[in-house]
């Protein structure tokens, strides 16, 4: 056994001076959200991704307005021209300007991506919340239903729904809303089940809080972080689904453009004109990458368990 080498000094046993300015070494106390924001702003990768997302947003709004061409304007004398000063991204097989089509397509893809992620997440929060909070039979029925629905690839339901209501951005969002809520519902239910048993919920129940104040002031705020992260992560997957559906000819029909649809048209000719696939492919990938990295950053910022 080694000897204890710590040397004690007399003032170790004195009372500390409580009047001293504690803030100077303990730091300001931060709320959960401002702490998360600080953490997020410090994450360089997430900030670069956010910059790209905002840039793509702005360009998609501005470019179609200031360009001399429209997204559906054809010029059959000028087809399949490679990128040049006149047509920054070149033209496609109908002589349409790809620069405008890419940024117009960005509007469609981003709208489908964002709404196609937010709406199903909200539905998932409500259903998962109900399931977890009320428990018992309600919970069992909802969870069984989710098990059954999840046995089939959601793409089958999406295609079925789109056969009902037609193709286009809004039918896409509706079918994502109807088929994409199960994952979030499961997560939220799990969280609510855990939270329900926590001391602060018990305490507030003991103080006579009503169901609604329990739900709105304790349960929802505590699941919010995870829901926001799953929404952010849902955007790239909705963009991907849109691209996938348009690629197989079901999502967005011409002449409206979307990235998936541009990629679809691009694959038909990419052996001769590779830039027509390369451009939408890079756009899809950069956007999905940005949302994924930003989502990672958000999760690190919002999930206290991952803090180091």
């Amino acid at each position: 056994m080694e000897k204890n080498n710590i040397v004690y000094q007399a003032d170790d046993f004195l009372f500390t001076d409580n009047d001293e300015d504690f803030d100077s070494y303990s730091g300001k106390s931060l709320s959960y959200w401002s702490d998360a924001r600080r953490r997020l702003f410090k994450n360089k990768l997430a900030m670069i991704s956010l910059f790209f997302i905002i840039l793509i947003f702005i360009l998609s709004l501005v470019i179609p307005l200031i360009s001399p061409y429209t997204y559906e304007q054809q010029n059959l004398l000028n087809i399949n021209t490679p990128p040049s000063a006149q047509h920054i991204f070149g033209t496609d097989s109908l002589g349409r300007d790809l620069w405008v089509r890419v940024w117009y397509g960005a509007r469609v893809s981003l709208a489908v991506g964002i709404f196609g992620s937010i709406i199903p997440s909200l539905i998932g929060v409500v259903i998962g919340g109900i399931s977890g909070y009320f428990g018992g039979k309600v919970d069992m029925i909802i969870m069984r239903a989710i098990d059954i629905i999840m046995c089939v690839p959601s793409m089958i339901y999406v295609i079925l729904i789109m056969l009902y209501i037609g193709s286009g951005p809004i039918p896409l969002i509706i079918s994502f809303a109807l088929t994409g809520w199960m994952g979030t519902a499961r997560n939220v239910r799990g969280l609510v089940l855990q939270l329900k048993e926590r001391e602060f919920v018990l305490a507030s129940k003991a103080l006579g809080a009503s169901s609604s104040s329990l739900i709105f002031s304790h349960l929802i705020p505590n699941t919010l972080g995870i829901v926001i992260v799953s929404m952010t992560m849902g955007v790239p997957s909705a963009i991907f689904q849109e691209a996938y559906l348009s690629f197989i000819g079901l999502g967005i029909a011409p002449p409206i453009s979307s990235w998936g649809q541009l990629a679809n048209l691009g694959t038909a000719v990419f052996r001769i004109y590779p830039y027509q696939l390369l451009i939408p492919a890079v756009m899809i990938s950069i956007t999905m990458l940005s949302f994924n990295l930003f989502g990672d950053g958000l999760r690190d910022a919002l999930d206290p368990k991952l803090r180091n």
Partner: protein
Amino acid sequence: MAKYIAKRLLISLITIWLLATITFFLLRTLPGNPFQSEQILTVEMEQKMMSYYGLDKPLMEQYFTYISNLLKGDMGYSLKYTNRTVNSIIKSTFPISAELGLRALALALPLGLFLGVLSAKKRATVVDYTCVFISVLGVSIPSFILGSFLQYIFALKLQILPMAQWKSTLHTILPTVALALSLLATLTRVMRASTLEVISQDYVKTAKAKGLNEFEITWSHQIRNSMVPILTMLGPMVASVLMGTFVVEKIFAIPGLGQHFVNSITGLDYTMTMGLVVFYGSFMVAANFLVDIAYGIVDPRIRINK
């Protein structure tokens, strides 16, 4: 345990029955009929076709016929592929999709788990950042884009691999890689996160304090415990990968099962769609069932003894 398995089996059967029922009625409420798109058909011919396949009978009667045939394992004739049963179409195309899926899994699973563990062990080093970057890139590039570029580079420019089709081992390389990258990326992500969670647990510290070497700790304490989340996702992942992915199969002209998922629905081929949904659903249910049993093997704490 036997009672638990019996109960799960019963629930699985009910799940598949409900699935078949819901899909049956959903399909039939779609506007149009399967023979509309064939323009040569006159109205009389169309009606003849409908009555030939029994589609003019009352819906409930059709439903009971279908379910009783399904119980015998007969999924009926395809409405689009003349004279071919759904069973025979599945039998001839499923092995191709399954082979492609297995190849992709054989590539992605060991590599993904390895990169995940490596990444977590070397946290916040160049190795970790590289693994994370690969995994984010993998989930950010859609497989159809990756597939097209693989074709462009390796078949068109370098001319070292065949462009498409499914004939020899050489033909399988590009589609396997195209399919495997996103699997690899997902597996790496999940494995990294779950290993990170396990790495700081008390029993790992205890193992270290006991004087176990690094390899033993990693192998029998960390990997084993971080496998649970992987198992959860592995069931559905294996099921969906084996069923074939439409896009990869389309790009590489592979005659697998994936194409039928889309074509049968858009062509209103009722029996084919039903057959695929039931087949896929049963596969998914079976996969989840196996995963539940595997939990008990990996983690004795969740072993069920009711």
